């Protein structure tokens, strides 16, 4: 399904065989399984009314999330949306602190100030704390990329948004500006074919999002978002391109949202056959597991171990989250200004602000 539109991104010679060492392939499988298990368990807890706030399932899209985040180095930054928690986990966020965030606890990355997937860990893992307004992080990613360009560090910013978010003016501004300044940024559109209930055809009148890159002088690539390795390869190429100073790339990763928009949505508007096709034939986790088995990279036992690790970590995270204290009510007026000192000493802050 992958097809290149506009400027073609050349396949990397190294990806001809297995594209990565075995231990890294195993790590990818771990992230995929972690994401899937987390998603399923959290949905169950949500349904039981044991979770405050909302959940935005990324099930079915793990290939995109893990693939693009795995293509980044620690110093590269990630600007995700509400549905991209898996990408943040892949970038390194700790499950237990993520879970503390879901339960509004002080050990959550935002100290209870925001919940569920409105998460981020800038100082620790260079991920931007998600904001709802779509796609509000796109212009911000331009700014981080500008700083990398100016400093000559070779770092890259990668931003993700959904298919629906491309209809918003900010999307255009960010792509256009990034191209004018040739910024080291990668634009990922996670095309899961629906924006809440709205299908692609009601969001834009062209066959693909990738081809819209041409309107900005940006190469556009369309990739099967359920194929984690293909996504990784395409993203890695785009990241390297940005690192070299050759400017932005637009990646459209196509998959399907298996669940509703959020926990409460039964998603009856998704055609049954389409959903079944994706669930049966295009499961990013199962397919990758099978691929690794076929390639002899993992055994059934390895897979069982990974699954056991994932489940153990989930239980530990759950315990950690519920044991973590709530923030103090009096904290609500702290941290208006930097000089309040509220955030000083936050884990991962490595002491003090970078800005001063």
């Amino acid at each position, binding site marked *: 399904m992958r097809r290149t539109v506009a400027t073609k991104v050349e396949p990397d010679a190294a990806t001809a065989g297995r594209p990565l060492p075995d231990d890294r392939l195993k790590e990818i499988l771990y992230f995929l399984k972690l994401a899937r298990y987390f998603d399923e368990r959290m949905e169950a807890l949500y349904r039981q009314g044991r979770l405050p*706030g909302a959940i935005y399932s990324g099930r079915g899209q793990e290939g995109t999330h893990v693939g693009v985040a795995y293509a980044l180095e620690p110093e590269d930054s990630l600007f995700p949306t509400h549905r991209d928690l898996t990408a943040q986990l892949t970038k390194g966020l700790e499950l237990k602190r993520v879970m503390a965030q879901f339960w509004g*606890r002080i050990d959550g990355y935002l100290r*209870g100030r*925001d919940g569920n997937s*409105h998460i981020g860990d800038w100082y620790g893992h260079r991920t931007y704390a998600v904001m709802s*307004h779509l796609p509000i992080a796109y212009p911000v990613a331009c700014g981080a990329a500008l700083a990398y360009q100016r400093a000559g560090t070779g770092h890259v910013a990668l931003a993700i948004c959904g298919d*629906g978010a491309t209809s918003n003016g900010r999307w255009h501004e960010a792509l256009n500006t990034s191209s004018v300044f040739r910024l080291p940024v990668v634009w990922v559109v996670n095309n899961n074919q629906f924006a809440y209930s709205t299908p692609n055809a*009601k969001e834009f009148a062209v066959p693909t999002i990738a081809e819209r890159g041409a309107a900005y002088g940006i190469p556009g690539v369309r990739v099967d978002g359920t194929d984690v390795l293909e996504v990784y390869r395409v993203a890695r190429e785009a990241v390297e391109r940005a690192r070299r100073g050759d400017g932005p790339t637009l990646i459209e990763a196509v998959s399907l949202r298996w669940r509703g928009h959020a926990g409460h949505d039964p998603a009856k508007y998704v055609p049954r056959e389409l959903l079944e096709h994706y669930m049966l034939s295009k499961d990013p986790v199962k397919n990758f597991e099978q691929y690794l088995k076929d390639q002899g990279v993992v055994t059934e036992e390895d897979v069982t171990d990974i699954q056991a690790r994932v489940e153990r970590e989930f239980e530990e995270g759950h315990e950690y989250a519920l044991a973590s204290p709530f923030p103090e009510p009096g904290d609500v007026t702290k941290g208006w200004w930097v000089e309040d000192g509220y955030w000083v000493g936050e884990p991962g802050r490595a002491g003090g602000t970078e800005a001063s």
Partner: protein
Amino acid sequence: MATQQVEAGAAGHGAEPRGKRGEDGQATYLIAIAEALWEEMERDERVFMLGEDIGVYGGAFKVTEGFIDRFGPERVMDTPIAEETIVGMSVGAAMEGLRPVAEFQYADFMSSGFDEITTVLSRYHYRAGVPLPVVLRGPSGGGVRASSFHSINPEPWYAYAGGIKIMCPAFPSDAKGLLKSAIRDDNPSMFLEHKWIYRRIKEQVSEDPEFLVPIGSADVKREGSDVSIITYGAMVHKALEASEALAQRGVSAEIVDLRTVYPLDEETILRSIEKTSRALVLYESYRFLGIGTEVAAVIAEKAFEHLDAPVVRLAPPNVPVPFSPPLEDAFLPQIADIEAAVDRLAGW
């Protein structure tokens, strides 16, 4: 005013289908709003709705569920995620004689259409004399653990802009009557539906298709003699609850529900102050330059001679609405805070 608390779904927002009136004939706030839309769509075919996921899906809160079947996709338009264009399209359609009602998935996202709202919609008639009968509606307010991006009270931003009538009803009947009035009004209006109220408050609501509540008039929801609580939206319900406890210890609070926050019904506010000589301004928009700030300033300017005590404001700080329950509870004015403030005022 028989009201009753109804429990919300898991997240407290967006969880259940719209449904109908209960067997007792009572309508929730959400149903009253849906009825207003339905009746006005029936009455006047120039009225149409546009917004994200309002058609096939029936809206994030299911306010417009079933509408597309009755009125078709031309009058119940699903739009791309482009708020500036949702507003701009509404303006253009209104210029050509239609009467658009635009839904924002959350009132928070009105900020994504801010420029079209405050530059075009609010200023066009004053500058060029073209009436713009546009209604912008959306769920606002906190208290449902929806955090910063799904809890805002944006009304002060748009009130400052001028040119747009802004309603924040607290009761199903007011919601229905005001929304119908807004749709019939030749001016732009903004109708903010408090999501905490949606399924929690119900009452008997008129089924007369000509039932209207006038825009710009406040309503005394409880008579009292010691202190006036001037408030609106979800805080009306907190004030009502607090006033029961206060009554038990002999403090009589009068509750003025603004209903419309722009333009402000100064007369009703001032009449209440004349009576009680004490004002607690209670509001859920942020303290600094929230709606109650204007109320307090009006009282300080126009009721000075009647005042026996300072004009006290009770409102959240100007910080993002926090997610964690203890933080959100500390952020929002609580019943105990209201009681304490009224007690202080009464004892002045």
